[in-house]
């Protein structure tokens, strides 16, 4: 063992871990969050010491000898109790409240005055873990005044910036590399203390420092998601027409505000209207500190919570009105001819056709036949249910006016960069500022560029995740890589194609306007055999056989930012069987119709939808991060944190509609989070549908067997009293 450090040793850091995005226009309480606790440990997993040795074996043995004398402090793990506090998580703040923020539009009082029916529900969206199969890992190498850090991260460019600031280094002296990363789901969109510590210790000890996270550490320290309690109030006319929606969210932030912690619930507020025309709407958010691991972005980040609130409460309203859940949806859909649709809160949905996706769903699901079957089965004591979710989401995180300094307070712009370099032989190297971690960007990006340049995707190499190779970048999160990064690449490849056309026109004595990509050639329109391959164009470009005044070479860089977000949407249905004796739910069918605009690669879309849906089914039925009242983490392993496996899941049925986005030239939208945003509500609505004949009309996730059984027992008890 070479060294042991504690928080007191970190005297030369310029500051604590950063909070980068906050809701606009308000003050957010931001307690100091040091990579190693300085005097108080605020949650299980809050690191206290760093042990450095020659190999993992000796280091882990040595950590057994680190004796920490804790003075137990009272803990608070329930955000509502925390807001009523004490005990206080951070005495210095004098409160457990981080912030309050609201977003509204329309006349809420009038909306509820107009309502003939109002339903109110307390919707609990419990805490989940990212659960990426590859835990985090960091290798920092400081030598000769420069730092290279390899990290399993989604955001190498952010890491370079923050490390430069925290270590007091000049930014060009820091290179951050995200190699192939084994999944993240938002959990690696962070500036983690371990990254700072490895870099700091490498500089201090003058040697490379490596840290590989264990699964146990991952479950306790890697940021978690969700954990909101929402009081949802929905008003409507008797005919089902929505008049108002008011949501009060209590967001459990855990012990600290990390990179985006405080901003996550606000993302939900942006889509609190869902796919519906609601004249008056308001979302009030209160952030609460508790003695738990911080929450931050996990797949969907605020939007799954919002969709769950809307879609589950809408079913409750339909039941109250005696309406069909699909009828009430259709009645309130924003009509297809109103896009781009500006909502009362000021958000503009780019494109949508919600009837179309629902109709497509109903081609796969015969609801009439299902209801008859359901009736017959109930007579036999089998409880089958169907649930729907018609959703939209906001993604393609970009417009600086919203997420930059004037909006969500991030001191940055949210463009994405691209660089395309055509080599002498016509092979292409592409650099992107987005930073994939398992999504298949290399495939989709190669397709986009190959398509523009008339080459096979196999000769297009995509380089990503290295601040030392390509241009400045803004990385990957919020389903932005295709809609922002992919479009940037398309624009960059178009620049190359334009230059190629000019070169070809020059060589063939034609007009550039008459040159088009035809098969594997830039050819004269109407004479497809008269043309040049990209290799021939590159040859000319590097031999300086270019038109007068044109630079030699064939390379371009683009920075591009869209005017707006993109809004994927769709319609999902879930069919479940409920074992009324045990409370166990089995999913029989899951049908997903998604619209992410023009598809670039159908197989990648399919993969994202499958994974996204599993993520939400996991939350609805299986997964839950749980702390006991003393703040002890009781779901610290994959034995207790129940990720579903293939054995628990049906074979998914998927389909698509295509409604192009006007926001980018490809007409594409993001799809990485869509399945997760849609699915928890479809599952929950299906379970409630199955439970209704048993006297249960509402239940919160997670729909574990015991909780479902208890709900049935409680309903029986009430029925008994009533009788």
């Amino acid at each position: 063992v070479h060294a042991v450090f504690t928080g007191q040793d970190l005297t030369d850091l310029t500051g604590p871990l950063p909070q980068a995005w906050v809701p606009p226009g308000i003050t957010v309480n931001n307690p100091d969050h040091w990579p190693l606790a300085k005097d108080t440990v605020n949650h299980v997993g809050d690191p206290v010491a760093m042990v450095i040795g020659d190999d993992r074996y000796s280091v882990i043995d040595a950590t057994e000898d680190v004796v920490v004398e804790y003075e137990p402090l009272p803990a608070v793990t329930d955000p509502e109790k925390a807001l009523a506090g004490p005990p206080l998580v951070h005495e210095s703040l004098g409160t457990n409240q981080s912030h309050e923020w609201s977003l509204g539009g329309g006349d809420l009082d009038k909306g509820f005055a107009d309502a003939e029916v109002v339903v109110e529900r307390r919707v609990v969206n419990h805490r989940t873990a990212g659960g990426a199969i590859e835990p985090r890992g960091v290798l920092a190498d400081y030598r000769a005044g420069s730092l290279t850090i390899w990290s399993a991260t989604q955001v190498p460019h952010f890491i370079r910036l923050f490390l430069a600031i925290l270590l007091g280094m000049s930014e060009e002296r820091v290179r951050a590399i995200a190699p192939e990363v084994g999944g993240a789901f938002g959990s690696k969109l962070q500036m983690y203390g371990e990254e700072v510590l490895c870099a700091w210790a490498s500089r201090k000890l003058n040697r490379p420092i490596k840290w590989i996270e264990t699964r146990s550490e991952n479950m306790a320290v890697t940021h978690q998601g969700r954990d909101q309690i929402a009081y949802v109030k929905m008003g409507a006319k008797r005919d089902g027409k929505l008049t108002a929606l008011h949501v009060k969210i209590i967001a459990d932030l855990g012990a600290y505000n990390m990179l985006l912690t405080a901003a996550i619930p606000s993302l939900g507020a942006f889509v609190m209207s869902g796919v519906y025309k609601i004249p008056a709407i308001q979302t009030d958010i209160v952030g609460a500190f508790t003695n738990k691991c911080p929450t931050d972005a996990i797949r969907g980040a605020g939007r799954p919570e919002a969709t769950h609130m809307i879609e589950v409460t809408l079913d409750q309203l339909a039941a109250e009105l005696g309406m069909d859940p699909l009828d009430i949806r259709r009645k309130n859909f924003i009509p297809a001819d109103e896009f781009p649709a500006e909502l009362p809160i000021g958000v503009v949905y780019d494109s949508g056709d919600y009837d179309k996706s629902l109709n497509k769903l109903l081609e796969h699901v015969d609801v009439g036949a299902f209801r008859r079957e359901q009736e017959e089965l109930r007579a036999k004591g089998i409880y089958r249910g169907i649930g729907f979710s018609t959703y939209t989401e906001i993604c393609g995180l970009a417009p600086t006016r919203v997420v930059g300094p004037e909006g969500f307070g991030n001191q940055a712009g949210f463009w994405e960069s691209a660089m395309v370099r055509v080599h002498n032989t016509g092979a292409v190297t592409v650099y992107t500022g987005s930073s994939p971690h398992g999504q298949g960007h290399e495939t989709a990006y190669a397709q986009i560029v190959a398509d523009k340049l008339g080459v096979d995707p196999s000769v297009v190499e995509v380089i990503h995740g290295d601040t030392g190779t390509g241009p400045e970048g803004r990385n990957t999160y919020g389903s932005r890589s295709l809609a922002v990064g992919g479009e940037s690449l398309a624009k960059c490849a178009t620049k190359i194609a334009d230059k190629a056309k000019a070169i070809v026109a020059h060589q063939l004595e034609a007009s550039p306007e008459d040159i088009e990509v035809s098969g594997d050639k830039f050819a004269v329109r109407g004479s497809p055999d008269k043309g040049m391959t990209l290799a021939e164009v590159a040859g000319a470009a590097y031999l300086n056989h270019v038109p007068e005044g044109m630079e030699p070479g064939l390379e371009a860089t683009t920075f591009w930012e869209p005017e707006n977000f993109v809004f994927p949407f769709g319609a999902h249905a879930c069919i479940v069987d409920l074992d009324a004796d045990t409370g166990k739910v089995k999913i029989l069918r899951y049908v997903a119709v998604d619209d992410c605009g023009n598809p670039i690669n159908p197989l990648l879309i399919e993969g994202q939808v499958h994974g996204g849906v599993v993520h939400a089914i996991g939350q609805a039925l299986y997964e839950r991060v749980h702390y006991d009242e003393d703040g002890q983490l009781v779901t610290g392993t994959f034995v207790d944190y129940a990720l579903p496996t293939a054995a628990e899941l049906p074979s998914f049925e998927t389909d698509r509609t295509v409604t192009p986005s006007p926001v980018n030239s490809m007409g594409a939208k993001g799809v990485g989070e869509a399945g997760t945003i849609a699915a928890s509500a479809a599952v929950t609505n299906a379970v409630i549908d199955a439970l209704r004949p048993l006297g249960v009309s509402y239940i919160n996730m997670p729909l574990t067997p015991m909780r479902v059984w208890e709900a049935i027992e409680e309903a029986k008890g009430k029925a008994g009293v009533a009788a």
Partner: protein
Amino acid sequence: MIPAEFDYTAPESLEGAIAALAGGGDDAKLLAGGHSLLPLMKLRLAAPSLLVDLRKVPGIHGIQRENGTFRIGAMTPHAVLERSPELGVFARAAGSIADPQVRNRGTIGGSLAHGDPASDLPAVLLIAEGSVTVAGGSGTRTIAAGDLFKDYLLTAIEPAEVLTEVRIPALDGWGYGYQKFNRRSEDWAMVGVSALIKQTGDICEDVRVGLTNMGPTPLRAAGVEQALKGQPLNADSIAKAAEQAAEGTDPPADLNASSDYKRHLARVLCRRALAEAAGIT
């Protein structure tokens, strides 16, 4: 993630294993499939000083039928049991253990010697009224299933003894049922109920019911057995008998199940296991 330092030996004879175990003192542990021991070591909840690996010991693998008894070597993996339908309820229970990787490595001897009440095989050994053979420095002895499980993770096997063989009477003429309840297919049983029924006509001549994870040790549901033995077998008599399934049990609550819920599950699963064993659907 990384266990504390330990020594390792893989003797090539049973005598060698017994000697190594005895010589290793209190902190020596036998290693069979490792699916219980190694996770405990990685979490540093167990820190044996010496692992005595049984993988090279001859004669403790495989299944033989001899005079109406199956003799199963302690190192026989669950996957082999699963593919031996002649073992009846044992094959069925073994096939429900965790996932294929675990079943390929985990062994019958390891599972029974670990004595986890949430594991599938211990309660099944109880209702099969089988036994285990253990070998130590002073020779071998047989422990009947009913005497094997003493307390939570505690068996009648002495620290310096090696479980070498499991004996199960061939249960010809018995119908069986096995009902395991868990959240995910790979999980341990939240509650499990195993049942054996011997019937003549529609009369229940004999019945045995085992409970998994309903207490610190695997249990027999004596109340159910008494209620059903000698009775006609039908849905009503089974339902009535199954009501006794949780009688006298005090299952500890855990993250996913309260004691009440476990008792409820025991009754539901007992009814289903009995119906299955009796061929009543």
